[in-house]
């Protein structure tokens, strides 16, 4: 958002100042303009507000006015007149031109098909930050490729990622689970429009969630298996979802999936690492403990474990 310098017609008008809330209103956003008067009590002054030249509010002590900004690139002019006893009519005008810079990011980590939630970054995962500028010059939308971007991670500018039309910035998160602070400054070539945004990106721990994979129904993503699974059929297929691991493909990857039953390691099908079908014992009643450890080779802190008790009763 650009607020052009506050204009006035004489030095005495420097006694009047307009402030905005929010300070940088975006397009089509409600904002409040407030007037302050350094030489007296504003509450006793007759005040008249104009929005885009149209008188909108008048009265004694009318210090605030609420208005809605226009579309991106559409200017809104706010003028206020104060009828003071000492200095006569004082006037102040500001022009608001909402340009915007939105910044979105996504992580290259695993979530299951149809998952409506966001993939979260984990240790050493790839993240892509995308800038969405909406800059307008006159009535022309400026092509994002004609905008200059400066990208920083923390305090450090990334020279290669910065420049004309460099709308995206890709990086790998660190080992630790701290925030990465990404800064992008976008400016027109002539510098007439310039906006800076800072985006904190947190690093999360990956995790395993178990689901039942039913032969005809498919994987029951709607309900996870939490602590205990009770056999109803003679066998059950347990499907593990490795949430937020850096895995481009569920089965074709370098991650080590170790399945165990009561501490005994099971042989894993390399083409189907994420599932195990377990048959219910023919007789008796009891339970056993299924455990899965995932260690993503090449990603030191991308590890997770999950246990599930499978309970059966033939009596």
């Amino acid at each position: 958002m650009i607020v052009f310098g506050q204009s006035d017609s004489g030095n005495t008008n420097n006694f009047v100042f307009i402030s905005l809330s929010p300070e940088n209103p975006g397009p089509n956003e409600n904002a409040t303009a407030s007037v302050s008067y350094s030489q007296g009590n504003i509450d006793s002054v007759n005040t008249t507000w104009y929005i885009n030249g149209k008188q909108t509010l008048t009265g004694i002590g009318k210090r605030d006015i609420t208005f809605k900004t226009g579309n991106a690139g559409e200017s809104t002019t706010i003028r206020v007149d104060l009828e003071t006893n000492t200095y006569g009519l004082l006037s102040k005008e500001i022009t608001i031109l909402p340009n915007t810079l939105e910044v979105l990011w996504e992580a290259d980590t695993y979530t299951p098909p149809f998952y409506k939630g966001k993939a979260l970054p984990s240790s050493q995962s790839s993240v892509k930050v995308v800038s969405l500028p909406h800059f307008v010059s006159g009535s022309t939308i400026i092509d994002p490729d004609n905008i200059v971007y400066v990208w920083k991670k923390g305090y450090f500018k990334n020279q290669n990622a910065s420049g004309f039309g460099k709308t995206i910035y890709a990086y790998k998160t660190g080992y630790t689970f701290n925030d990465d602070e990404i800064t992008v400054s976008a400016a027109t070539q002539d510098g007439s429009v310039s906006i800076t945004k800072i985006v904190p990106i947190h690093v999360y721990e990956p995790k395993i969630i178990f689901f039942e994979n039913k032969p005809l129904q498919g994987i029951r993503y709607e309900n996870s298996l939490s602590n205990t699974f009770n056999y109803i059929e003679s066998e059950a297929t347990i499907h593990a979802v490795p949430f937020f691991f850096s895995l481009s493909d569920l089965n074709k990857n370098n991650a080590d999936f170790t399945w165990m039953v009561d501490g005994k390691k099971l042989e894993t099908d390399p083409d189907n690492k994420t599932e195990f079908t377990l048959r219910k014992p023919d007789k008796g009643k009891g339970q056993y403990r299924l455990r899965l450890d995932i260690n993503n080779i090449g990603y030191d802190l991308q590890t997770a474990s999950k246990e599930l008790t499978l309970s059966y009763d033939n009596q």
Partner: protein
Amino acid sequence: MTKKQLYIIIGVIVIIALGFLLASFLISRQNIGTATEKPNTFANFFPFGQNTPNQTTPTNQNQTVTTNVVNVTEGEKFFPILRQITEKPTAGLFSYNKSGNTYVEYTEKETGNIYEVKMEDMSATRLSNSLITRVHEAIFGNDGKSVIMRYVKTNSDSITSFVLDLSRINRGVEATTTTPTLPTGKFLASEILDMKTSSDAKKIFYITKSGDFNNRTAVGSIFDFQKNTSSDVFLSQFSEWLPVSFDGSAALLQTKASQKVPGYLYSFTIKTGNMQKIIGDIKGLTTLPSPDNQKILYSASTLGGVTLHLYNRKDSSTKDIPIQTLPEKCVWKKDNISIYCAVPNPLPSGEYPDGWYQGITSFEDNIWKIDATTGKAISIFVPRSLTNSPIDMTSMILSPSEDFLFFINKRDSSLWAFDLLNGESE
């Protein structure tokens, strides 16, 4: 009066009383369980016990709610206001009116078979017998003349979207085992992440992504059911978009949500290619636009819960709605004013919406109604008053005449209906 006369009078009174009791018993037997069931369709239209009129049930909102539970008699048949339509998992549903009657049509997850149920007498008909197993979601469009079956190939994450032509099925006619009823169809692009039917149901807007991660782009496309063609209209270097509304000229695109990450909702105008932010910088943002797209019901994540709000695009105003639920558990009425919502009772402490999406948390819901003009919400029904099964409602739709509210119980994907005409207490 002699003793003999007294005994005769008492005897007559006892016989008359016994006659009354017997008649009442026979009449009550006639009124229960007379629905027409066809073989191999539904196991239980009447899963509940005798209803109790005007039950009073406390809710988590510290209010006393009177649910006007009534027995509805239609002709000689008797139906509760809350009805379980299927026990088998349902992938998608669609409702229509025919000759003044409300029907619900649905796809079975395990077979891909399509059924219709006439709500007036709960008669059920299997319309198709073409086998598609493991259907994750079925999206009806084109006034019920098409359905998109979405499923994942075995041992892969690859999503297939197949459009079935339903125009040739005979509604009301039972499909036989020997005559496949759905021979024609068309595969859409692979890896369609999400899709939304247009408000007139003639088209869908869908998102695909392509390329390796750093160069990945999301493409938004429109599929026209009648022309049977797709065209690309949207390109973005950011790929985590969910279309939440599509009116044919603009799509509302929401970023995928997580409790700790700010989310955004944009309007994408197809003719101009213009993207305009509607709301944003809201952690855990999930949204449900009104039918006219002018109001947005949205939730925001808090520490351990969610808050619900209503944003009005006309004046950029926001109202706080005094219930805790996710917009995915709500449906707007056509008047753009009333909203029915399934509200967890109570909302378990957790990370939302992540925990619900991941299947970690399941809810037990009551049905509430919101007035978008005032922002007030009232409880209209407590399912526990009629069933012992906890219901976590999702995929809510209203029948065209808004006399029934249909939903899927996320716990087992069973299909249910709530009779609004008789069950909604104003």
